[in-house]
């Protein structure tokens, strides 16, 4: 388990991280979500030791991480970077060796990972001659080549075409499920996060504002909305119940906002008393809606 505990960091007078804590369990994929400038990159750089926190620490299996442990992490920084004039395979072998793999094994792993990422035909080319999408794949290969014990990826999906997105999603799932690797990645593609992640951590202005599974987030944070369609009812039939307000009117139905203490079944009873109920559902907010709600709060 990878844990970030009580991280604080300021740049000059700007507070970038204010008591940030979260954990990435073994085999779990965690989405790290928040608006631009919220502190995602700062937190990830601290996790990888390329930035020092003012306070707090990073733990691996309950122990504070040191250089030897970090060497076994895989990292994709926000600012992509490879040697532009170095050839793809040579570069991956070099990075694998920096991460501690012996020469022969590093070469084997480089061959495997270019095949996994679908860039084996470009393995002998200089990185600068590759398209941006392929450079991105090589960048991901660089994070994965040494069979890392944990993966920290800053915006790994940005710049990938749909096929690339599927390839990467598959790779991350395999890493987590088959190898038990904790994976945390940041992304603004919230539908992707919703699809792929076991848990989500929401950060805003340097603070963690929500974390947990998406269902937990819905239960804890989302406003309770019902979509109801009643034929033959008078306008404002729901006014009879205290704590129920109109959120929106659409397609002959209404969206109702319920206060915390209102029982959904009482609303249904009232609706049936008012007319014929054609439609009665909970509105499940998407992660994007949760995000907007939490961030604007």
């Amino acid at each position, binding site marked *: 388990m990878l844990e970030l505990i009580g991280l604080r960091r300021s740049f000059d007078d700007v507070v970038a991280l204010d008591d940030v804590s979260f954990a990435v369990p073994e085999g779990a994929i965690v989405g790290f979500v928040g608006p631009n400038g919220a502190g995602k990159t700062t937190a990830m750089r601290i996790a990888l030791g390329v930035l020092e926190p003012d306070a707090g620490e990073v733990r691996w299996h309950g122990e504070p991480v040191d250089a030897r442990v*970090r060497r*076994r992490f895989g990292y994709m920084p926000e600012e992509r*970077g*490879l*040697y532009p004039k170095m050839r793809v395979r040579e570069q991956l072998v*070099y990075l694998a060796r920096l991460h501690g*793999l012996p020469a022969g094994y590093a070469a084997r792993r480089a061959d495997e990972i270019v095949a996994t990422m679908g860039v084996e035909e470009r393995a002998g080319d200089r990185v600068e001659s590759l398209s941006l999408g392929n450079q991105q794949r090589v960048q991901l290969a660089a994070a994965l080549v040494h069979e890392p014990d944990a993966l920290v990826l800053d915006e790994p999906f940005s710049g990938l075409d749909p096929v690339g997105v599927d390839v990467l999603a598959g790779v991350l799932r395999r890493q987590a499920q088959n190898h038990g690797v904790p994976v945390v990645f940041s992304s603004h593609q919230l539908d992707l996060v919703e699809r792929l992640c076991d848990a989500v951590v929401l950060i805003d202005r340097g603070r963690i504002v929500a974390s947990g599974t998406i269902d937990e987030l819905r239960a804890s944070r989302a406003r309770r909305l019902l979509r109801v369609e009643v034929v033959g009812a008078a306008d404002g039939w729901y006014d009879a119940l205290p704590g129920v307000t109109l959120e929106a009117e659409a397609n002959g139905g209404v969206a109702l906002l319920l206060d915390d203490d209102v029982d959904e079944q009482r609303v249904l009873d009232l609706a049936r008393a008012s007319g014929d109920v054609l439609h009665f559902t909970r509105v499940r907010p998407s992660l994007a809606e949760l995000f907007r709600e939490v961030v604007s709060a």
Partner: protein
Amino acid sequence: MNDIRPSDRGVWRVVAMRDFWVRLRDKGFVISTCVTLAVFSVFILVRAYGGVGTPAYDLGIVVDRAGGPATAAAYAPAQASAVTAQIEAAASSALADVRVVEVHPPDAGRDRLREGSLDGVLAADGILEGDADVPTQLRQIVQAALVRDRIVAALEAAGATEAEVDAALNVPAVTLRTLQPRDPNREENGGIAFIGVLLLYGQLFGYGVWVATGVIEEKSSRVVEILLSAIRPRQLMAGKILGIGLLGIAQMIFIAAFAMSLAAITGALKLPATALGAAALVLGWFVLGFAFYSSLFAAAGSLVSRMEELQNVIVPLNLVILVSFFISIGAVQDPGSTLAVVASLLPFSAALAMPVRIVLGSATLPQIVLSVSLLIGSTMLLIPLAGRLYAGAVLRTGSRVKLRDAWRSAT
């Protein structure tokens, strides 16, 4: 999950090997090595076959072809051989070599003057004809030969025997004495010292800049963040310096081996042992000087993120090395001057000035020991300071990092 968790203590070697091989295959490196080899080849070939050794001239002497009485401008054959003998004698006492060939009227060697295979043509009426000019030394030799010829004639007319004529003319060469102790190889050693300091300057500065360029390359391509998620800044800096330094040493050994083989084959080198010693000296002082300067170049490079800013940050280092270089060039002429002695002791200039003074035999053993100790001592002080600046600055991309900020943010 695998459990490879090796120690990272030797990881600088992986870095060093990359920096070594990538640059060895670099087009710029291959070209600059070839240019250096070409310059050395020209220098050695000129020394071997050019006029740098004993000066040699080709002189025509106008001789009457018929064998009858001399015409106005042509020597009779007997006369000609007497003059030729005097020319050869005069040439040998002037430490030169004159080859005399007979030419005949009416052309009298003018074609050969024009095509350059003769340096001058001497006629019986005392006219020395040249194409555009006649070399001064050849004129002096001819003049001396004519004087000798007349003295021989006068002595013989006065009844002197052949032995008496010889005794009068063949004066032994003067013995040279100097007020200061004289190094018989001063000239050749001066040449070796000059080439040595030129090479040292080029290597120290060139490889120093290469270290700075390598650091900036990693910052500007942002690969440094990936590298530093795997290893520590000081390991990266050490590996880079050692890899590039190793390449510098390899290149110098290669150039020295090439130059000495060529010199040995062509016979350009009179003192092979001295040259070998000087090559070892240059190599040794490159190691010391590179150790001193390279960490500063790495720290300077780490302050900026764009290659365009390289010049700005290396100006101070550039100046220090350039001033040391000029002082050392001066030391080739006067290795015992106060300036040369001081420069050979101060760490920032010792690597250039001290080898010059050693080759020229001007440095004393205590001076050498002091100079090396100061250089090694200050290097050991500098490397941790430069390492701290590097570690504090190398991950800060964007505008130029202030020294104070770099110092503070390092841990």
